[in-house]
């Protein structure tokens, strides 16, 4: 019998054991298939940073055509759901009670100011607690007023046109739909869960249950053991990824402008880096409870906060940016954003791919060293 034959025989044995273990406890399959479905559903329908139908109050005391026209522009805007109030005190009360998120106040004698002094004041008051939302509301309000100015200009009325106007183009996502960047990010999160969380337990479990000793006395070598632990979860992770991409593109119409081959190769790299990290935790810790805590603290939460998935990394302090370089999810978020929205732009993809490759080699190498075939760790 050749050594190669023996190797495959051993590998088949340990793979069979791992697959059986996964099949007997369907919770890991649930994680790979059910959780992505649930999360995509929630994310796709529920999570958006774009506000619509924001409840606001429009306050004006002046019944002139121009004031009514401004108020009508706010009524027509899809961003706002307006309520008309006549006193600013009442509106203030509503804002304090959280019944509305903002007040548009046409101050003083709107139309006589507008035509008499050439300048009428519009005050926008927002609840600043959610700063991001507040800023969006201010932006929307500004947009409504600009539209009104353009309308008047188109009708040939004299208007003060701003000297410098901005013409903006948002590339890759012309209408600024936040779902288009949140869904690719979510795929990163799902793969991280499968890669780090599941594998973090697999070696620690053997130690804790004492079955590691049984494995130690078999002729299985470290490399067989490692491959046996990695391959089944790798396949689960890739399945979860394909499922998520498919749903994202078909159900939520997230554009996918890159090539599928590139996605497969790059996500395989990311999967390997995550699996390696999970295995390393598992091999180094040997206690499931601690391994679980660490996989969440060092794996899952950084993938949520330090990856650029929701919060912009470049705006964080330099120290945090440096720390973020050890988070594999960071590179894959960059890759998936580019692949989904911009296409196969290799100058962007390649450095990230190299980083992932380096991390995969490093983590799996360290895990390999940590998995000793000795009882004393």
């Amino acid at each position, binding site marked *: 019998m050749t050594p190669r034959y023996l190797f495959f025989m051993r590998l088949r044995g340990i793979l069979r054991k791992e697959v059986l273990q996964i099949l007997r406890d369907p919770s890991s399959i649930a994680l790979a298939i059910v959780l992505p479905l649930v999360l995509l559903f929630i994310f796709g329908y529920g999570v958006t940073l*774009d506000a619509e139908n924001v409840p606001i109050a429009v306050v004006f005391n002046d019944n002139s055509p121009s004031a009514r026209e401004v108020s009508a522009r706010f009524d027509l805007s899809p961003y706002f759901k307006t309520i008309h109030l006549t006193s600013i005190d009442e509106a203030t009360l509503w804002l304090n009670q959280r019944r509305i998120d903002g007040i548009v106040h046409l101050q003083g004698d709107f139309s006589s100011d507008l*035509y008499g002094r050439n300048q009428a*004041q519009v005050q926008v008051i927002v609840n600043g*607690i959610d700063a991001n939302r507040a800023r969006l509301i201010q932006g929307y309000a500004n947009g409504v007023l600009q539209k009104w100015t353009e309308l008047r200009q188109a009708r040939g009325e004299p208007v003060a046109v701003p000297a410098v106007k901005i*013409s903006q183009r948002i*590339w890759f996502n012309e209408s600024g739909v936040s779902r288009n960047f949140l869904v690719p990010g979510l795929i990163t999160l799902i793969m991280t869960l499968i890669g780090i969380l599941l594998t973090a337990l697999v070696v620690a479990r053997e130690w804790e249950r004492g079955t590691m000793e049984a494995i130690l006395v078999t002729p299985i070598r470290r490399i067989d053991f490692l491959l046996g632990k990695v391959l089944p979860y790798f396949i689960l992770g890739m399945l979860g990824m394909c499922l998520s991409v498919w749903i994202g593109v078909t159900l939520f119409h997230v554009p996918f402008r890159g090539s599928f081959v590139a996605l497969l190769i790059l996500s395989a790299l990311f999967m390997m880096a995550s699996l390696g990290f999970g295995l390393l935790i598992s091999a180094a810790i040997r206690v499931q409870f601690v391994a679980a805590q660490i996989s969440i603290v060092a794996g899952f939460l950084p993938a949520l906060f330090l990856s650029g998935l929701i919060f912009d990394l470049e*705006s964080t302090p330099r120290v945090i940016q440096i720390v973020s370089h050890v988070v594999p999810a960071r590179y894959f978020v960059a890759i998936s954003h580019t692949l989904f929205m911009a296409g196969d732009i290799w100058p962007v993809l390649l450095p990230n791919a190299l980083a992932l490759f380096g991390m995969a080699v490093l983590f799996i190498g360290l895990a390999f060293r940590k998995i000793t075939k000795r009882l004393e760790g």
Partner: protein
Amino acid sequence: MDTVRRIIALMLKEFVMVLKDPKSRFVIIGPPLIQFFVFGYAATYDLKNVRYAVFDESRTVESRQLLARFEGSENFELTKTLLSEKEIDFVINREKARLVVHIGPKFSRDLHNGRSTTLQVIVDGRNSNVALIALGYIGRIVEQYNQDLVKNGVISMDGPGVLLTDRAWFNANLQSRWFIVSALGGLISMVVVMILTSLSVAREREFGTFDQLLVAPFNPAEILVGKSVPGMVFGLMDALLFAAGAVYWFGVPFRGTIGALVLALGCFILTIVGVGLLVSSLSMTMQQALLGSFVFMMPSVILSGFATPIENMPNWLQIGTLLNPLRYVITALRNIFLEGAGIGMVWPQLWPLLLMACFTLPLAGWMFRHRSQ
């Protein structure tokens, strides 16, 4: 009296289980604290140093004055000056810059002739939120520039115009850090408590020691109390530490009352202990418990209003979030920190939490005995 003695004995055992192993002692305090600080800095929607490139075809005093305002802003950082239109493609595609400010050749001629002119801005939309916020900042800069042009008499107001002034209550500078950091403690302590409690019964089941506990002279209620207390203690300790960190380190204002804070966190941790023990009582292995807590935690983080507003969700999903404990504590924490709420004002957020605890805790206790292999 016997009940109290038995509960104390069980509690002691639970504390010893967590505290005897130095690694597990560490993971309850160390990493959550580190996370709180790292994420406190990382989790913000405010942009700083957005890398931009400039393509100035005008090269006049006016265009330079406008560009100087970008350079003076801490929101932007100039990385490249472009010499041809073709380069725009290159820098955006390859992420050399996140936006390009393009001033056309007729910029200052138009201004001097009293005509309105355009400033073209091309933004990388891969992160649409960053793109929109950056455009908002640019809008401010240009608006200010326009007003100064009028004030300095470079151009004159030639018709009726509208001046927009805006004010933000409770957070005048619109710092999103306050919003995030005030709620972050709730999120992280949920993760800690959830893992701690969800693994507690599952671990005993996996090791087979749970059967011993069931045949010992404990009734399910005593086991329930004994298993809940460590989670309560560690969770509340972590959450209060985070609250102190938010105030003393990140400078988040604390406008409410300490009583309301402790009560809100206490109710929340109790609910999470209930959910964690329920997950644990349903699980046979630690892996199942861990995955179960993830199935609970992931949607509850996403649907809590922590990062994305609940108001933006469709109606049916907003109703669904009423079942999410994290939602209530996040609202309560923000009310307490930023709006100065006392116990009376946060009560609407607390009774749903207590209701959930009243449901999950007894159910978990019942499951201890009624679920077996």
